[in-house]
């Protein structure tokens, strides 16, 4: 059996905002092909952790390795796709078309002057076709619905076929049907291409079916392991209460049987 490469390694990450501690002693290892769900309440430090991983914030203490490189020296950002939180709110009135937004997904692989070529445009077209949103190509992003925006940003994040996809609460704006489709697509990419996925959500039920590992975050890592382990974890029993834990696990197992 081949040993899978480590995609992300977090060692004792601490982060505080002023005197307020946001993350304490976060450690974990994510290997190639993992589909990790980070679950936590609002304010549990999920988004902060993502920003630290992406080098948008600097941890106070601790070490991060992305593809076995320190984030300070890491320059292969094209290997990482990222779908941020609250896309719709911050960019509602920005006068950019779907095609233009997609073209930003190519930026990390371009050299100086970074022109968008005909070939790039073809690639964008292909990706939009794959996501069934080619008809949106020339629309302003402000004119899209939440679900459409989500698809555009996922398509953008996947434009360079990244090895590692990071999603920050992407499913919260989607209706149930679209969400199911969204997850089945992610599972597909995860299984066929062995794309590593890190998925942040506040709702366990979104992720329990797809992820092979769960991290329960509340400033610290309360739990990190498989779903089966989650169901028998004494810490999680303590956190959720026996009934709630049982009901979450039961729902999921029911799902598997169907």
């Amino acid at each position, binding site marked *: 059996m081949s040993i899978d490469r480590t995609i992300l390694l977090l060692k004792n990450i601490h982060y505080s905002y002023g005197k307020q501690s946001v993350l304490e002693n976060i450690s974990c290892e994510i290997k190639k092909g993992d589909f990790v769900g980070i679950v936590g309440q609002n304010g549990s430090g999920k988004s902060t952790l993502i*920003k630290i991983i*992406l*080098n*948008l914030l600097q941890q106070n203490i601790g070490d991060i390795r992305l593809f076995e490189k320190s984030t300070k020296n890491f*320059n292969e*950002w094209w290997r*990482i796709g*990222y779908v*941020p939180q609250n896309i719709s709110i*911050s*960019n509602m009135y*920005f*006068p*950019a*078309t779907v*095609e*233009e*937004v997609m*073209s*930003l997904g190519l*930026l*990390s692989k*371009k050299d*100086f*002057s*970074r*022109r*968008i070529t005909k070939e790039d445009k073809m690639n964008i077209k292909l990706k939009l076709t794959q996501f069934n949103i080619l008809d949106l190509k*020339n629309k*302003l992003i402000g004119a899209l619905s939440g679900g459409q925006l989500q698809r555009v940003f996922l398509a953008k994040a996947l434009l360079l076929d990244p090895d590692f996809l990071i999603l920050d609460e992407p499913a919260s704006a989607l209706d149930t049907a679209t969400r199911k489709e969204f997850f089945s697509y992610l599972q597909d990419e995860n299984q066929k291409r062995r794309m590593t996925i890190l998925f942040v959500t506040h709702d366990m039920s979104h992720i329990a079916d797809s992820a092979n590992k769960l991290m329960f975050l509340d400033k610290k890592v309360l739990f990190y392991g498989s779903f089966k382990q989650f169901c028998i974890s004494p810490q999680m029993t303590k956190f959720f209460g026996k009934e709630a834990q049982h009901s979450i696990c039961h729902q999921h197992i029911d799902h598997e049987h169907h």
Partner: protein
Amino acid sequence: MNIIEILQFDFVQRALITGIFVALLCSLLGVFLILRRMSLIGDGLSHVSFGAVALGLSLGLFPTFIALPIVILASLLINLLNQKTRYYGDALIGIISSSGIAFGIIFASISNGFNADILSYLFGNILTISTQEMLASVFLSGLVLAIIYFFYYHLFALTFNEDYAKIAGVKVTFYNQLIALLTGISVVVSIKVVGTMLFSALLIIPAMASLQISRSFKSTVILSAVIGVISVIIGIFTSVMLNIPTGGTIVIVNLLFFLIAFSARQFFKM
């Protein structure tokens, strides 16, 4: 006088060449600044340039050459303060802006008071532009235009979303400084065209007009440039024909374009 006759004058030709370059520069930069919610920076820097020009006049030095380094320094300072204290950026610009005017008034009264010279820096006097001034403006504008052309996608990414830009490998701090620097240069080259008091108009109005009716980012940028350039051309001819101040006329033409675009948006529900 008809247009052909007006075009015969050397000073009109110089005014047109300078005006077109400066308008192109300001209207392009304006799109990026407005979308980054940084349009106030132009206002602040133009007031600083007033202080610098007054200093130059009181020392008997060529004001534009004094203004260039001072405004560039101020632009980098505003950018630095903006990054250190994210939440009060607009108030900080307000402080720098009013300080610029305060120094300006003091320097002006020390030298000669508000004479014709200082008025031309306040409200522009493009028809009196010399060949050297024209060449300097064209050179600086050309430089900034080249930078915008080569770094278009970096600037687009940065304007769209800073986090995205960072992850795509765009050096955000550097480009923020670059934008501030370019704004500083455009303030100085605009002094002769519309003056320090009306600079913001050149920066903001064409871009705002374009934003009303644009269908993509690229078209916003191009349309803004077109509106800016046409406004300067119409403004110069109109002011010569009617014998009214050129700077003010250019701004009013810009304003008309904005009103037309704004009404079109309301009317067609774009």
